[in-house]
């Protein structure tokens, strides 16, 4: 049985609200929790197999040029070393998300410092590491472009638009903002470094790897190796964080597979933390020119947002900085611009919420500047500028929750009664700030198989991944709710490319896509049960393993009569993706204290109110928001990739120098999840929530710093050095 559904029409039935098991939406504990807290969850490098060799990657130490020679023989003579591999099939950089084919290959042409160019394989890890450190590379070096350059940047056809006359609107404006904001590069820094264990049986390859999107990754890996995708199996039952960095197949996985084939033994390759920084994706630095024009009441009449980003030559991806700008606020005069500078730096790709993470953040700092200029409360300024329709494309919104989030967040935070900005307590200056959140909502083609067994248990199977997002929990809950089973009687199998193909985890579309496919499969099974019970599916009640129809309750075991029921559900995007603007919305509020002597900023409290359609699990959804908000804390205060101006090398390529927020940096954040059903999104009326929490989050902190000190930071992060000069001035005045 197969149930296929294309989202061509909104689904107003709200079928899940008619179910009575009462588990969906609750904060059920993750079913995979006990494995994770006992160390028995198997991540990529944990699936060790007998006779496994260890490989360590070797990196290029120049920014651009040709690799002329590798002294393989000398290294192969070292104790334990089995081989030094390199060649045309090595990946220059990871594949971009949903690429579905290999990225640029070959270890001969070097495009950035840190590019993996060889693999040393040995019996033991220590021998392979020593071998990798002993490799001598000889190059012919070429002149490199290591810094983004606005003058020579490409102007792509996409991501450009204009309406009306922005310049004229700026001239006529009662209040305006015209400023340049910059954000530095970021690294996903998932706690699990990219790793793979590859093993061949004949021409069949099995790889345990850390991947977000298996359907695409199988094709990317097969293409890279030049083999039939049917012969490739990827296992990723647990992924130690992704945040975009594991969307596409990456260099260590291809190298492990090549080595295992060459040596006829399983090979494990894990990137070192430094290699994760250098050879997986970075979020591009951005330069954003923002113009806002408003009338005397603070209503926007014009918005301009022009971005400069960078990437390697030959990469299609460019950070979609302005993605939310066309629809977030009103204003008839609009200009969106985008340029890409080609640089010899680590590949730029998706890092949590590509686009909005940095684009909404800069826009929301600009909105705070407008509020200050106009003397309007920042929350009020947003309320006055919520558009009736998507102004960029003149189409309706599927659902619009910005006002609700602003109101809820302001009330929860106590915005009206916030402390006076600049109030001094000892050496500390207090301030509060807020910002809006928004992220586009998407769905992708996705399949799942559900089997209802005669013993009253159910099995959900899909190649979908759980990268910490809570997939194991929510797919369990959807099936339990639809089939009327206690969650303990539902088992979810994920992360095996042999299972039905899902959209994968990325772009906040995983829950909507994979969840809908489970919903559809379960709906199909319900129809079959209804038929057997002689009723319509709409009048069938399933609860606690009983089928109830026409006031008659029968155990499912009796209905199934010894044979399982199985259905495959498949969802695909359709006309609802274009007919309306689908987005999630939220609002952030923060209170900071800035040390008047040192310039140190401490976040005292932070609140987020978010709407993302139906919430599938209150606990895991909240945790996703906590994670997003904390990425925002890092973006506002500490995170910054620093490139050596000589060769583009990421200087701070580890966790001691690239500063993630630690426990002591993060107070007890509060999160409210708002009630919403979005019929245009999917049959569950749910939207993605994994990225919303970062989209604009950093701005509320930067705006709070301004409230505390009067200092406007336009170049993130707001490190001490950017505040000290202004603080000195405050002291002179004080």
């Amino acid at each position, binding site marked *: 049985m197969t149930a296929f559904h294309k989202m061509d029409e909104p689904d107003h039935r709200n079928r899940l609200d008619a179910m009575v098991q009462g588990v969906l939406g609750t904060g059920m504990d993750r079913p995979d929790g*006990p494995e994770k807290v006992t160390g028995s969850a198997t991540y990529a490098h944990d699936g*060790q197999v007998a006779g496994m060799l260890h490989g360590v990657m070797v990196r290029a130490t120049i920014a651009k040029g040709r690799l002329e020679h590798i002294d393989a023989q000398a290294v192969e003579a070292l104790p334990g070393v089995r081989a030094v591999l390199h060649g045309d099939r090595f990946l220059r950089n990871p594949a971009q998300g949903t690429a579905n084919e290999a990225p640029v290959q070959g270890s001969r042409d070097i495009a950035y410092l840190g590019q993996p160019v060889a693999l040393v394989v040995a019996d033991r890890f220590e021998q392979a590491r020593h071998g990798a450190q002993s490799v001598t590379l000889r190059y012919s070096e070429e002149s490199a472009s290591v810094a983004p350059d606005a003058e020579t940047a490409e102007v792509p056809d996409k991501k450009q638009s204009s309406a009306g006359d922005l310049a004229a609107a700026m001239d006529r404006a009662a209040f305006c903002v015209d400023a340049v904001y910059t954000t530095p590069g970021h690294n996903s820094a998932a706690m699990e470094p990219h790793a793979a264990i590859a093993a061949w049986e004949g021409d069949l390859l099995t790889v345990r790897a850390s991947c977000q999107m298996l359907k695409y990754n199988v094709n990317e890996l097969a293409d890279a190796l030049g083999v039939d995708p049917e012969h490739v199996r990827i296992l990723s039952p647990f992924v130690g964080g992704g945040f975009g960095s594991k969307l596409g197949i990456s260099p260590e996985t291809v190298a492990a597979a090549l080595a295992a084939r060459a040596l006829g033994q399983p090979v494990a390759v894990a990137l070192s933390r430094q290699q994760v920084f250098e050879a997986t994706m970075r979020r591009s630095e951005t330069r954003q020119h923002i113009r806002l024009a408003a009338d005397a009441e603070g209503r926007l009449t014009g918005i301009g947002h022009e971005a400069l980003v960078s990437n390697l030559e030959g990469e299609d991806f460019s950070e979609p900085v302005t993605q939310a700008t066309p629809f977030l606020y009103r204003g008839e005069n609009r200009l969106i611009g985008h340029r890409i500078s080609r640089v010899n730096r680590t590949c730029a790709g998706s890092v949590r919420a590509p686009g909005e993470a940095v684009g909404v953040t800069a826009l929301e700092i600009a909105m705070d500047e407008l509020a200050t200029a106009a003397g309007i409360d920042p929350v009020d300024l947003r309320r006055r500028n919520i558009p009736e329709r998507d102004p960029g494309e003149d189409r309706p919104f599927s659902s619009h929750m910005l006002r609700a989030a602003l109101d809820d967040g302001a009330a929860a935070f106590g915005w009206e009664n916030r402390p006076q900005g600049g109030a001094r307590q000892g050496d500390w200056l207090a301030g509060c700030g807020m910002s809006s959140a928004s992220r586009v909502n998407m769905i992708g083609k996705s399949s799942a198989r559900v089997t209802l067994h005669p013993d009253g248990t159910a099995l959900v199977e899909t190649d979908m991944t759980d990268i910490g997002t809570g997939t194991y929990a929510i797919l369990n809950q959807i099936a339990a709710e639809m089939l009327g089973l206690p969650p303990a009687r539902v088992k979810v199998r994920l992360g095996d490319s042999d299972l039905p193909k899902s959209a994968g985890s990325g772009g906040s579309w995983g829950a909507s896509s994979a969840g809908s496919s489970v919903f559809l499969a379960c709906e199909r099974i319900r129809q079959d049960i209804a038929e057997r019970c002689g009723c319509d599916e709409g009048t069938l009640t399933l609860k606690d393993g009983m089928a109830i129809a026409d006031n008659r309750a029968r155990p499912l075991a009796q209905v199934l009569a010894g044979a399982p029921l199985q259905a495959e559900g498949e969802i695909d995007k359709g006309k609802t993706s274009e007919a309306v603007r689908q987005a999630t919305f939220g609002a952030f509020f923060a209170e900071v204290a800035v040390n008047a002597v040192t310039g140190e900023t401490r976040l005292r409290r932070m609140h987020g109110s978010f709407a993302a359609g139906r919430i599938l699990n209150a*606990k895991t959804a909240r945790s996703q928001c906590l994670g997003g908000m904390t990425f925002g804390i890092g973006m506002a205060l500490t995170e910054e990739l620093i490139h050596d101006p000589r060769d583009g090398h990421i200087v701070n390529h*580890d966790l001691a120098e690239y500063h993630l927020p630690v426990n002591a940096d993060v107070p007890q954040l509060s999160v409210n999840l708002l009630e919403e059903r979005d019929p245009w999104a999917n049959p569950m009326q749910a939207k993605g929530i994994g990225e919303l929490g970062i989209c604009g989050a950093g701005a509320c902190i930067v705006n709070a710093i301004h409230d505390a000190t009067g200092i406007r930071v336009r170049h993130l992060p707001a490190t001490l050095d950017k505040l000290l000069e202004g603080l000195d001035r405050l002291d002179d005045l004080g």
Partner: protein
Amino acid sequence: MQTKLTINGKSHNLNADTRTTLLDALRNHLGMTGTKKGCDHGQCGACTVIVNGRRINSCLTLACMHDGNEVTTIEGLGTVDDLSPLQRAFVAHDGFQCGYCTPGQICSATAMLEEIKAGWPSHVSADLNAEIALSDAEIAERMSGNLCRCAAYPNIVEAIRTVAQGGRT
């Protein structure tokens, strides 16, 4: 090099390269992959284990330096069917998302609570000689050697606070 280790109460005779870290010995030689490698140089805390009662980064120490030592890893704290109070609290409070840093967090928290009982002050302790009040700030400070990119920090603090206060989850 021959090294005798007692791991989770069981004696092991390790014969490994002198360059082998305690972390790699656990993972690659002894088949205990519960302890995770996040950075391999003491910056993330994912590899935290308890050696002779003290929490350490197992990536920063060589296995051969621990001859005769008692090592406790995540596998020694509880099992799926018999979780320790902290393990149970981490599940109930969602003190993790991807779960990769979690074994290190739980080993670290287990030893950290003993440090507090023993009266060790921290950077945020107001009085170096007084009994330590187990505030959220104390927990957060003492757990800041364990990074969590999923940022379950507020939930980690809640989980540890609940257990420290004798709460059941």
